[in-house]
């Protein structure tokens, strides 16, 4: 078991910029997260949430700035299986001919040999991960036959099987049933106690208040960042959503 130093930064992104063919998607963004922290990533569609995730996983190159994962480069974080990405349900082809077991096994690919032959330990990791998300009855079910919530749990299991210390989750609560929502919430608390670092994007403000120690409000760049209780104010949210008041967005009770 790796020793976790709760004082060192897991994620340290400094002034990062990302542009696609000259179009700026994200600029001067900063983020620092320690082990055991859960951070909410909040912003409008097109505000750069997915781009932020892409930069952290190395799926897009940053044009400026620096990203350190556990003090090392993104490249070596990839090699060390440090980061797991849990995609949005819309981000995957649900008709792909593949079973729950095979998807979760993909979490182990990075640490297998070139032929991706599962070892005893890989099989065990996959079994355990599937058990934790309560899908043991669906091992060989094609993902096309799963509900939205079950599919979300499948990808969460893949991240668990990967044994990553950083989890990036794109809209983990969108389109899931109550049972899945409860299960994911419980898992978050377990992850936190295990010292994992979690960054999740969400549209649901209630979830931010419920789980997130920290919140990062973005609109192409960081609008506000800090402890949820301090930063997650109606004024900041209004700024993040381009002047629309949170009352209008979330109803008068928020």
């Amino acid at each position, binding site marked *: 078991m790796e020793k976790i130093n709760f004082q060192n930064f897991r994620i340290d992104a400094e002034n990062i910029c990302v542009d696609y063919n000259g179009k700026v998607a994200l600029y001067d963004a900063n983020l620092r997260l320690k082990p055991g922290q859960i951070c909410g990533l909040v912003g409008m569609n097109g505000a750069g949430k997915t781009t932020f995730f892409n930069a952290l996983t190395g799926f897009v190159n940053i044009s400026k700035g620096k990203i350190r994962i556990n003090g090392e480069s993104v490249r070596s974080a990839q090699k060390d299986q440090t980061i797991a990405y849990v*995609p949005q349900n819309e981000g995957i082809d649900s008709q792909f001919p593949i079973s729950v077991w095979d998807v979760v096994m993909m979490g182990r*690919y990075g640490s297998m040999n070139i032929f991706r032959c599962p070892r005893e330990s890989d099989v065990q990791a996959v079994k355990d991960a599937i058990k934790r998300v309560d899908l043991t009855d669906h091992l060989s079910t094609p993902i096309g036959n799963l509900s939205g919530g079950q599919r979300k749990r499948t990808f969460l299991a893949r991240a668990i099987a990967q044994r990553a210390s950083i989890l990036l989750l794109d809209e983990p609560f969108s389109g899931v049933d109550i049972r899945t929502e409860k299960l994911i919430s419980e898992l978050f608390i377990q992850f936190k106690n295990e010292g994992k670092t979690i960054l999740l994007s969400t549209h649901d403000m209630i979830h931010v208040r419920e789980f997130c120690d920290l919140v990062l409000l973005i609109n192409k760049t960081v609008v506000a960042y800090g402890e949820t209780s301090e930063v997650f104010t109606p004024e900041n949210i209004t700024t993040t959503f381009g002047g629309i008041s949170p009352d209008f967005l979330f109803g008068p009770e928020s």
Partner: protein
Amino acid sequence: MELCSFLTLDLFITDPLTHEFMRKALLMSSLVAAVCGFLSSYLTLKGWALMGDAVSHSVMPGVVVAYALGLPFSLGAFIFGVGSVALIGFIKQKSRVKEDTVIGLVFTGFFALGIVLVSKIKSNIDLHSILFGSPLGISLSDVKQTIFISLLVVILLSIFRKDLMLYCFDPRHAKTVGINVFFLHYLLLTCLSLAAVVGLQSVGIILVVAMLITPGATAYLLTDKFDNMTVISVLSAIISSLIGIYVSFWFDLETGGSIVLAQTFIFLFAFLFAPRYGIFKLKKLFAGYK
């Protein structure tokens, strides 16, 4: 009765096998079909049908130039196949023209260049056999090349089978766990070019895209497991080739067209009667209730 059907079998199945060119055509086309069928599962899942069409047409000038220079035609085809994809990527990135438009204009440009070159370069190139394939008239050096390329593609696909599946399914995850996505992208493109090269001998440049997408599409309707999909795809491709060649022999039809038509009929059959995804699956459901 039994004797009668035995005689028919003898006449229709084994008699063609007494011809050397038929044996060669059946063997070579099955091999080519197997390679294209294997690749086909990946292309249909990745959504690369149009890319397959583009690459297969773009190899035309390569084939002509290679013949003119006395080089192996697969080499020329390969260079132009990969080159077309690079050009498509470049134009797409540097202009505001949409991708399908870029693909369309690049491959037709390459194809036209090939046709012009054929008419200009005096050689013994048979335009007809390039466009429509000539599995019955395949030469010995072509046989060697085809076997070599086919084995190469099958070995590459077998080694990177799972990585390619992951690349088609979720490239972002592949990248996140340190798998070289760039390499896989070009590996798949390389295999596509090579498969197009061997496929064009069977069915010709115009129809080779069918070899690269129809078996995969058929298999996709019949299974929910990736491994099964590959097996079904390869089998349906081989069966289509055999049917196509026999039918073309019995009725004196264009061989390439017959092979592709056989594939299309198998697809239509799956489309109508596939247990889960066919359009008549409802009937089966109702039958179950009674």
